[in-house]
């Protein structure tokens, strides 16, 4: 495993850079704003990359609507698709570098993102007149998971078109993709 880590030190350095960047992103800064054409295209790319080729974009307008969407049913297929990607990437990364170094590097990413996203979500919600500690934590959890997924995609060598890379770009642009159900990607 040591040789694998040494050979992949560039990948780990890049992941360390990725962890450091988490505090500089526009977490939740654009939620509730009208979607741009570029964001709609990214959303569709994300859905297609997960296998939802006929998905459409559903704009979510505010925090209460985001809560209703995330509390809804019918997300199993989307969930399974993401989990299959996660499992495949983890197998690849583990084969390349060993499980412990990969998990340690990803822990640094999730630690870095966790320290900033709860505050960012709370501020964004407060700007809209919403003070809900649970919903802010839900948003923070989603952002942390997205950063973990994106970090995993990077360490496994997946490219910029991987669904986790695309999803992360939406988060980095201040959005919150809420999941796919009924052929709709709910995008906040």
């Amino acid at each position: 495993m040591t040789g694998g880590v040494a050979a992949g030190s560039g990948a780990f350095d890049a992941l360390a850079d990725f962890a450091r960047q988490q505090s500089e992103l526009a977490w939740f800064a654009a939620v509730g704003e009208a979607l741009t054409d570029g964001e709609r295209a990214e959303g569709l790319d994300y859905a297609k990359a997960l296998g939802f080729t006929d998905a459409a974009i559903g704009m979510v307008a505010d925090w209460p609507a985001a809560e209703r969407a995330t509390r809804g049913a019918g997300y199993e297929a989307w969930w399974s698709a993401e989990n299959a990607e996660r499992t495949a990437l983890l197998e690849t990364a583990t084969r390349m570098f060993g499980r412990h170094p990969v998990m340690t590097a990803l822990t640094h990413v999730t630690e870095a993102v966790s320290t900033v996203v709860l505050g960012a979500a709370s501020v964004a919600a407060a700007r809209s007149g919403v003070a809900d500690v649970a919903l802010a934590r839900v948003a923070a959890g989603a952002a942390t998971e997205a950063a973990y997924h994106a970090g995993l995609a990077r360490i496994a060598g997946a490219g910029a078109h991987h669904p986790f890379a695309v999803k992360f770009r939406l988060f980095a642009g201040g959005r919150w993709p809420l999941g796919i159900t009924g052929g709709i990607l709910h995008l906040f």
Partner: protein
Amino acid sequence: MSEPSKVQVKTVAELAEQPEEYRIAVGKLVISHAINELYGAQVFDEPAVALAPTPYAKWLTCRVAMEEYGHHCHFFKLGREMGIPEEKMIPGKTEKRPLSIFEHKLETWEEFVTIKLLGDLAEILQVEDLLHCTFHPLRNLARQTMPEERFHAQFGIDFGQELVKTPEGKARLQEAVNRIFPSLPAFFGAAKSRNNEIFRKWGIKLRTNEEMRADYLKRAAEVVAKLGLTLPKVAQAA
């Protein structure tokens, strides 16, 4: 030498000037919290993400897992500053046996809700007992983590309230309470514990294990009663 009833240790540096009994006692508590917080995150919170019924529940569980992990990191950091070897504060590396609750394999969402509802209540009582601890770095850490511990217990109440809305959900939650709860009173340690006697002698903790367990049983019964549930009968002594 400091007099037990008067001692107030404001920094880690001052800890080195305290009697060995005090230093060992504080070290035991820091190790215990560092281990248990990480066990909780690994054994319950992380597996629960896959059991969550909605994205809302899934992401909230992700956040709770990170907060529990963060608590471990805080206690681990304090322990390291105190000179405690790292391997004593990490499950799998330490020789310290896990609490029996951590040997339970989480299989359902209802079990996780029960862990938050009743397991985190037990954690709250443990942290409450440190809020006036004479070792101020540990006292301050307890005060820092307490709001999140309370939120985690509220998580159990909120999702418990959702589950009991249907007879089927209520029955599944009651079954989970029946399975999980019997192992929780042991969380408070043995009656007439020598460790606890030393903790109280030095003002590190306030209450006996028996007092804390009795308080826990009362508060746990109140929490489940609000959901229309009951606690199974368990042996009172650890």
